[in-house]
C-alpha cells in the first residue's frame, strides 16, 4: 500500500541531503551569517558539534515577520523567481538549510534586527516550531543547534569521534574564512579557542594562521584578469605539496566549491613540478559574472558548474603555469641590478625569502613554452600497486628482460622485454631497490633515537597539533620524539637515528603533509613507511653514479621485487612501448 509520508519524515529525509554531519550545519550557518552581512562571526562547538553548535553573528538580523518562517522549507529571503537562480549573488538560495537543521535537532534562533528595539526568539525541535517570543538580544543573530540527529539514530551512529568531527569543522571554518578576509572569525571548541582570525589579515597571513605558519614562505601570489574572469590568490611552491588534496582551495564568486575540469586543469599545470602522489597547495579565488556559474548542482552546494567550463579551466591552467614558471624567472628578472640586493631570492641558501612582498606585483611571466603533449599516444605508464585489483595482475617486467641494456642521458635504461621496449628511470628503480633493502634490514631491529641538541621547533596548526598529540606515543616508538611547545608549536627532541642526516623539522613536516585523516593504515606503519622512504632517498642521493656492473645487479634485484613499478615516492620506474605501438608508429601495421 502506498502511503504518503508524514511531513516530519519527509523533512528528515530532505535534511539528510543537506546535513550529512555536524560540519554541514556549521557550513550552512556560517553562510547564512555571511549572507546577512556579518563582519564578526563566532562559532562554538561542543562534543564535535553533535552536542552543540552555535554561530553568533553581528549581521542584519531577521525581520521579526520572517521569524515564523525561519524553519519552514523553501523559505528564503534571497531568491524570489526562477530567473533569480541564474544569477545567484548570495551563498544561500534554496531556503532549505534551516528547515533541514530544524528537522533533526533542537534549534534556537535569537535575533535582533539592526536598529530594532528588541530581539525575538524561536525554537524548533524535530521540525516543530514555537511561536516567536520577544527577548533581549544583541544586534545580529545567534543560531544554536543542540543534539544533532537526536531523532535520527541511524545518522548518529555514522558520526566519527568528536575529535574527528571537530577537526573537520575546523578545516571548514578555516577554508571559508579565506574567502572573506574582511570578516573576523573565531572558532571555539569545548571552551578552547581553535581559531582566531582577525579581519584585515592578508590572504597568506590568514592561510598560515589556519594551516601552519611554515606554509607562508613559498606562496607565489597570482592575480590575472581574463575577459569576464579574474583569478587571484596564490599557489604554493611545489615543495610544499601534500599527500592529500586538502589544501587545494578554489573559490568561485566567494563560494568554496569544486569543479572537476578546473581541478584537473590546475593539477595539470602543477604536474611537471610534483612527484607522483603529491597534491598541490593553492588558494584561488575565481570571479566571473553570476550568470556564468550554476551553483545549484549539489545538495550541499559543494560543487558548481561553469557555463564555459573549458574556458575557465584554460584560464586557471594558464594562471598557475605562469606563476610556477615565473618563479624561476624571478631570479633572472633582477638582471643588471645591484650586486647584493636583499630582495634577490636566495636560491642557494635554501632559506625562505622573508622579504618578498606577497601581494606585490607578480613577477613578469616568462614566455610560454610550447604546450607539452600529455603523453605519447599508446604509451603505457606503470602504475603503482596502489590501484585496487591491479597489483595482482601486474607481472614484474624485470623478470623477463634480456640481459642487455643501453644507458641513455645518464639516467634512463633501454631494455628489451618480451612485449616491447622498456624505458627505465634508473634513479627511481634504484630508490625502490634500496627501499626494499632497508625495509628488510630494519624489520625487527630496535629503534635508536638521535637526540637533538637544539630541539627543532615546528609551528603547527591546531589540527596538526591534535594529530601529533594523539600519535605522540607511536611517533616515539618509531624514534621521533615530539613534545608540545606552547599553544601552536611542537618541539622535535629526537629523530630516528637511521635518519640522522634528515632535518628534524623537515621530518615532521613531511609526516604532517602525508595527511592526517584517521583510518586507513595504522599510524605506526605509515610513519615507518615514510621514514624508510626518506632514509632510502638519503641513501640513494649520497650514492655514486652507477656503473655497468651495478646496473646489472640493480636489474637482477628488481626482478625479485614485489612492487617494482614505482619508486617509494610514487614516481613510475618503467615505461613500456609495446611492440604493437612501435609497429603502428612506424606504419608497419595499421
Amino acid at each position, binding site marked *: 500500500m502506498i502511503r504518503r509520508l508524514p511531513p516530519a519524515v519527509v523533512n528528515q529525509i530532505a535534511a539528510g541531503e543537506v546535513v550529512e554531519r555536524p560540519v554541514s550545519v556549521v557550513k550552512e550557518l556560517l553562510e547564512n551569517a555571511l549572507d546577512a552581512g556579518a563582519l564578526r562571526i563566532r562559532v562554538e562547538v561542543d562534543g564535535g558539534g553533535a552536542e552543540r553548535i552555535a554561530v553568533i553573528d553581528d549581521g542584519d538580523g531577521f525581520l521579526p515577520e520572517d521569524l515564523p518562517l525561519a524553519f519552514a522549507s523553501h523559505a528564503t529571503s534571497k531568491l524570489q523567481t526562477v530567473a533569480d537562480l541564474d544569477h545567484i549573488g548570495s551563498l544561500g538560495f534554496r531556503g532549505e538549510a534551516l528547515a533541514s537543521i530544524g528537522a533533526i535537532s533542537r534549534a534556537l534562533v535569537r535575533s535582533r534586527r539592526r536598529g530594532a528595539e528588541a530581539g525575538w526568539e524561536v525554537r524548533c525541535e524535530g521540525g516543530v516550531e514555537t511561536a516567536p517570543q520577544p527577548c533581549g538580544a544583541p544586534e545580529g543573530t545567534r543560531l544554536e543547534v543542540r543534539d544533532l540527529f537526536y531523532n535520527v539514530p541511524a545518522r548518529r551512529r555514522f558520526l566519527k569521534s568528536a575529535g574527528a568531527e571537530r577537526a573537520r569543522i575546523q578545516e571548514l571554518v578555516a577554508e571559508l574564512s579565506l574567502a572573506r578576509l574582511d570578516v573576523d572569525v573565531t572558532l571555539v571548541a569545548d571552551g578552547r579557542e581553535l581559531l582566531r582570525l582577525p579581519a584585515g589579515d592578508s590572504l597568506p597571513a590568514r592561510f598560515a594562521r589556519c594551516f601552519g605558519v611554515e606554509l607562508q614562505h613559498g606562496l607565489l601570489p597570482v592575480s590575472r584578469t581574463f575577459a569576464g574572469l579574474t583569478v587571484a590568490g596564490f599557489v604554493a611552491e611545489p615543495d610544499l605539496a601534500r599527500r592529500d588534496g586538502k589544501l587545494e582551495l578554489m573559490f568561485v564568486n566567494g563560494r568554496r566549491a569544486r569543479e572537476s575540469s578546473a581541478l584537473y586543469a590546475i593539477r595539470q599545470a602543477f604536474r611537471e613540478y610534483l612527484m607522483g602522489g603529491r597534491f598541490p597547495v593553492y588558494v584561488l579565488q575565481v570571479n566571473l559574472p553570476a550568470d556564468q556559474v550554476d551553483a545549484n548542482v549539489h545538495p550541499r552546494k559543494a560543487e558548481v558548474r561553469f557555463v564555459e567550463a573549458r574556458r575557465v579551466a584554460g584560464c586557471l591552467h594558464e594562471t598557475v603555469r605562469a606563476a610556477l614558471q615565473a618563479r624561476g624567472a624571478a631570479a633572472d628578472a633582477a638582471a643588471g641590478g*645591484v*650586486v647584493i640586493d636583499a630582495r*634577490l631570492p636566495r636560491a642557494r*641558501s635554501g632559506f625562505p625569502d622573508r622579504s618578498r612582498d606577497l601581494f606585490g606585483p607578480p613577477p613578469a611571466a616568462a614566455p610560454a613554452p610550447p604546450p607539452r603533449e600529455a603523453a605519447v599516444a599508446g604509451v603505457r605508464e606503470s602504475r603503482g600497486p596502489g590501484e585496487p585489483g591491479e597489483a595482482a595482475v601486474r607481472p614484474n617486467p624485470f623478470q623477463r628482460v634480456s640481459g642487455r641494456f643501453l644507458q641513455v642521458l645518464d639516467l634512463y635504461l633501454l631494455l628489451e622485454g618480451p612485449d616491447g621496449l622498456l624505458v627505465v628511470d634508473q634513479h627511481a628503480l634504484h630508490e625502490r631497490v634500496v627501499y626494499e633493502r632497508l625495509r628488510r634490514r630494519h624489520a625487527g631491529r630496535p629503534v635508536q633515537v638521535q*637526540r637533538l*641538541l637544539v630541539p627543532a621547533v615546528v609551528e603547527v596548526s591546531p589540527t596538526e597539533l591534535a594529530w601529533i598529540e594523539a600519535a605522540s606515543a607511536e611517533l616515539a*616508538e618509531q624514534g621521533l620524539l615530539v613534545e608540545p611547545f606552547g599553544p601552536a608549536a611542537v618541539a622535535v627532541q629526537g629523530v630516528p637515528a*637511521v635518519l640522522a642526516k634528515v632535518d628534524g623539522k*623537515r621530518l615532521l613536516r613531511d609526516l604532517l603533509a602525508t595527511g592526517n585523516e584517521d583510518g586507513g593504515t595504522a599510524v605506526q606503519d605509515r610513519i615507518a613507511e615514510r621514514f624508510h622512504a626518506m632514509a632510502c632517498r638519503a641513501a640513494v642521493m649520497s650514492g655514486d653514479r652507477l656503473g655497468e656492473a651495478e646496473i646489472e645487479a640493480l636489474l637482477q634485484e628488481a626482478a625479485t621485487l614485489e612492487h617494482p613499478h614505482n619508486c617509494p615516492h610514487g614516481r613510475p620506474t618503467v615505461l613500456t612501448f609495446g611492440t604493437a605501438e612501435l609497429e603502428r608508429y612506424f606504419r608497419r601495421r595499421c
Partner: protein
Amino acid sequence: MKILCDRNALQEAVTVVSSVVPVKTTKPILQNLLVRADTEGITLFATDLEMAARVQLDAVKVSKKGSVLLPARETAALLRELSDPTVTLESSDQRCRIESGGGSFVLLGESPEEYPEESQNKSGKRIEIPAGRMLRMIQETIFAAAREETRYAINGVLLDCAGGCLRLVATDGRRLAISYENIDSKVEFKVVVPLRALNTMVRALPEDGKEALQLEVGDKQIVFKIGSTQLQSQLLETRFPDYEGVLPKSADTTVEVQKAVLESALRRAAILAPNDMRMVRFEAGDNQLRLTAESTARGRADVAVDAVIKGAGGGINFNPDYILEALRVCKLDDVRLDMSDDSMPAKFTLGESFTYVVMPISGA
C-alpha cells in the same frame, strides 16, 4: 683597455675572484669576470649576486684605461698554462687579446655595462682579526653546520661578537661547535654567514697568516677584507638557536685521552657501524675508554684505549662520524670528554678555545 702585468699576480687574482663565479646559472653573463683598468692599477671583480669578490692589483702598467668582461673559467685556465712572467691584455669592443710567451689569444667577452655593478656598502661595524686565526675558527666550526639544503636548515655559521670576543658557532641540531677569539674591540653584532661564503674564505685565506683580516658587518651583508682582496656576502636572515643554553654545565664522567689514540680507535670501531645507522658505544671505566660497534650483517668491533677517567663512569652512544669530523680539525694532543647519560649533551674540549657539543643516541 691595455695593460701589462705580472702573470703570477694576475693568475692568483683571477683564481680568487673566480671562486664566486657560479658553475651553473640561468644568467650566462655571471660566468664572466670584470677587469677594470684605471690610473691606480686594475681591479678584478666577480659576483653571483649573493656573493662578490674583488681584488686590486697595482703592480700593473696601464697604458690605456677601460674595462672588459672575460669568461672566468677560460681566463683562469689560460693564465695557468702561460709560461712568460708577464702578460699583456688589450681589449677593443668586446674582445680581449692576451699576449704572452705561449702565444696570442682572443677571448670573446660581453659588454661590461651588462654586468651587475658592485654595490657600495654603507659602512658597517668593523673588527680586525689575524687571518690565520679566522681560518682556524672557520675550520673548527664549519663542519658542524647543516649540510642539508632545505628551507628549514641553517646553512650558515653564527658570528657573535660581544664583550671583546668573537665567537663562531655552527650547529645542525645534533652537534654544535664553538670557536672563539678575543679581540680588541667593543663592537657588537650577531649575524649568520652562509656556508658558501665561508668555504670561499677557507680557500682564500692564508694558513697561519699574521696579516689582519678586516670584517665589516652591515645589516644585510658582510665584507671580509685582506690586503687588496675583498669578499662580500649576503647574510642569512635566520634566527640562530640559543647556543649558550645547550652547553652542559656539569657532567657525571670526565674522560681524558690522547687525540691520536682516540681518533684511530674510533676510526677502527666505526668500520663496523652500519652505513645507515652510524652508532658507536663509548664506555668509560677502569681508566679505559672502550669503543664498541655492531652491525647485524657485518660483525662487531671492540677497541679499548687508555684514558684518565674521573667521576661515575658509564656508557653512551654517538654517531662516530660526528666525532671524527671534529677530531680531524683538532690540533690538541689530549682531548677531554665530559659526559653524563644518553639524554644529556656531551662536551668535547678540542682546543683552548674550541668546544664541541654532541647529542648522544638513545633507545626509543
